[in-house]
């Protein structure tokens, strides 16, 4: 069906193919098996464009391939092209292949599939690279871990010296509600409601968030406003040189029972 139609649609464009003397004669010779090669060779050696044109008119519905063989005859010997015609015949599916689909490696449809596949893969890779572009390898942000000085530098109560730079309150307490001992804990200054930074109100002994009014005891437990849970505590240990080491990448949540972790509270 496709073979019947295609040659007709191609016909108006015949001149370009007609200029190639070898392109048309072989079609005529198709049924002859070995014959096309010799005839094509004769056409190639004989009169060139004028001789080639007339046979283009009654172009028969091309059965299988031999276009491939026809083209190659212009350069190859008769015997060689005939051999090629026979070898390429099974590779090209005669039923689906257009008569002018001459590629020896893949059908035109397969080439198109390959091209679209490669294009899609390249586009996907470019998209992925664009996405990755948005995530820099180096961040100009304060480190998650820092040394906070010697324990002896801290008095009882809330210390705000690291709030601005590292976002941490270091609290020294004589008796923690969880650890039931004296020592240090590090509270993250991020409100558990929507992420604002509460203020420490010395006179009222609480942390108060200016955004929506959440209030927290010095332990970090929430007691007023919309905050759904206590402030988080960060890992606090003693470094080798005896300084407090605060590690914000390790967080402890009261409601998950994590404040009992030995690194959530430093006994001192």
């Amino acid at each position, binding site marked *: 069906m496709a073979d019947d139609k295609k040659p007709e649609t191609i016909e108006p464009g015949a001149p370009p193919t007609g200029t190639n003397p070898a392109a048309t004669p072989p079609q005529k010779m198709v049924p002859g098996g070995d014959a096309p090669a010799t005839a094509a060779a004769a056409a190639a050696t004989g009169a060139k464009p004028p001789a080639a044109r007339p046979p283009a008119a009654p172009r028969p519905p091309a059965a299988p391939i031999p276009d491939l063989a026809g083209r190659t005859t212009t350069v190859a010997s008769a015997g060689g092209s005939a051999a090629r015609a026979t070898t390429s015949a099974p590779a090209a599916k005669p039923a689906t292949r257009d008569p002018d689909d001459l590629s020896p490696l893949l059908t035109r449809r397969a080439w198109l599939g390959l091209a679209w596949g490669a294009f899609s893969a390249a586009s996907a890779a470019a998209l992925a690279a664009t996405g990755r572009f948005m995530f820099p390898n180096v961040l100009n*942000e304060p480190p998650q871990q820092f040394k906070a000085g010697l324990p002896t530098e801290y008095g009882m109560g809330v210390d705000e010296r690291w709030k601005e730079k590292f976002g941490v309150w270091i609290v020294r307490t004589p008796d923690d509600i969880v650890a039931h001992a004296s020592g240090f804990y590090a509270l993250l200054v991020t409100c558990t409601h929507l992420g*604002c930074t509460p203020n420490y109100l010395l006179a009222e002994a609480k942390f108060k968030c200016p955004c929506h009014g959440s209030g927290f005891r010095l332990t970090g437990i929430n007691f007023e406003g919309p905050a759904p849970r206590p402030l988080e505590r960060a890992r606090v240990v003693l470094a080798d040189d005896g300084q407090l080491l605060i590690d914000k990448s390790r967080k402890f949540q009261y409601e998950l029972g994590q404040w009992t972790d030995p690194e959530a509270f430093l006994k001192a």
Partner: protein
Amino acid sequence: MADTKKEGAGTRFWNWLTETQIWKSIFRHDRPNTDRTRVLVMLSNVFLHLHPVRLRKSGVKLRYTWCMGGLSFFLFLVLTLTGLLLMFYYRPTLEYAYTDIVGLREHVPLGIMREMHRWGAHAMVITVWLHMFRVFMTGSYKPPREFNWSIGVIMLVLTLLLSFTGYLLPWDQLAIWAITVGSNMARATPFLGHEGPGSALLRLGDVPLIHAYDDARFALLGGSFVGEGALLRFYVLHCVGLPLGIAVLMAVHFWRVRKDGGISGPL
């Protein structure tokens, strides 16, 4: 044309002008004083052709359309123009952002420009909502206009994102904490936010693939908190990325109004 007694200087100039090669190369039609030339005006202009050639009577009645779509477009043009002017003075850095905004009011002639941008933005959000309300109440989302309704929904989101990104740029306390609160919603993005549903499933063994330093919120802020990265990203999105997207969608939107049969008629 021949009788110069009846024609004033203006008419003569007009007649000369419309015969010049420059004029004729731009306008392919005569003066729009007949139905045919009026149609040609609409069809031969890349901007006007987005608009329907003919309108229903109801389509020009304020009590039917409220002109909210047209006002939204007008406000978008106002915001584009004033925004462009503001960009001449504003630098999106921690050092300068706030003082540049103050300077726009105190040091720049016509300091009202920034207020026009701000109030125009508020007004556009309102008119876009009212436009959507009118379209809903007149049933104009029904076939064949479903696709255009969907385009409109996307443009509503882009309008709100433009408003959101612009809110950070003054870099005052209100801006920083509003964006802190607002961008925290991105933590809960399904799969792509590190506190969102499903993100815990994306892991290689013990290593979580989605965490606070590579999730949707991080991509938006360019950092783990609202800092210089967030200011720059919001600035670029506000001035280039989002306006570009909404402009393309507006062209499609207007064109589809025409293709879908013009402004809907009364039910």
